[in-house]
């Protein structure tokens, strides 16, 4: 009985792991759209370009620290796969950029907050850079343009976790 349970658990474990982190490293340039869907599921959003090329966006969830962008050419096969929650992409965000510019560059934020007194809209992504961190883009809410960016380090609390989230 116990042995049977162990066998069942062993069989379940790989399935659970695969579901928890869809494996984007298995996608190669030249793969077709159905192949991508079969490996990593349907995208959270699709960005279509005028030339027929597309970018498929895969945010990985609220506490996740990765978002993948799969770029298809006008030939409908994969050209590139990027993990965009990274300083390489964050550093491209400049004051004056639109909400769509930001969204297309680093994908859907985990949260959006409004601060009326400053007419500010804050978009937040969680990422990992040695520590877990938050990357914030601060928009002029009425104008819909980037004002600035802010990086915050998550702080480990050693006080018994009373103030832990």
């Amino acid at each position: 009985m116990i042995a049977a349970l162990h066998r069942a658990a062993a069989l379940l474990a790989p399935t659970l792991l695969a579901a928890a982190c869809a494996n984007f490293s298995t996608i190669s340039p030249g793969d077709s759209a159905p192949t991508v869907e079969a490996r990593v599921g349907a995208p959270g959003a699709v960005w279509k370009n005028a030339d027929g090329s597309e970018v498929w966006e895969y945010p990985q969830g609220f506490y996740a620290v990765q978002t993948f962008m799969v770029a298809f050419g006008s030939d409908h096969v994969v050209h590139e796969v990027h993990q965009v929650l990274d300083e390489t992409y964050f550093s491209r965000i400049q004051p004056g950029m639109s909400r769509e510019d930001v969204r297309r560059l680093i994908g859907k934020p985990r949260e959006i907050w409004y601060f009326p007194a400053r007419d500010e809209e804050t978009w937040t992504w969680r990422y990992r850079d040695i520590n877990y961190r938050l990357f914030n883009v601060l928009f002029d809410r009425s104008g819909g343009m980037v004002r600035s960016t802010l990086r915050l380090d998550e702080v480990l609390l050693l006080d018994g976790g009373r103030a832990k989230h």
Partner: protein
Amino acid sequence: MNATSSRALLLLIPALLSGCASFSAINPGASSQQVETLVGKPASVWKNADGSEVWEYPRGPLGVETYMVTLGPDRAVREVRQVLSEEYISKLHVGMPRDEVRRLLGRPRDTGFSDLNDEEIWSWRYREWGVRNMELYAQFDRATGALKKITRFQVDTSDGKRK
């Protein structure tokens, strides 16, 4: 020391004093008038049932300190507390009502909201150990006004560039 630099020094002293109103100069027993003379009028006054009062002095949005001056029923100072510190922030707990948070930490630097989760968000900036710039967020359920989540972050001023 030449005349120019001594004049500069004389100018600098009042500038420094006005930059940080001297809460350290308020001693227990001082009168409410003395408090007003030293640090001006409070932004808010909280009256307690026993006749004592708490005068709130947020130094934000630019400052990173908030002082609470408690006056007894005799209008004499009992204590002066700087509440944007570990000692007071660690008293926050999930379920705490908004009013209680306000009385504990004073006026937030900023308030915002999240439509997605129907939350009201209060934020404060403070300094930890006198060296680290910290950001504190208190997220309240908008319908009940109860504290849902408390998060603290260290502000990275390097703008993503490696030092």
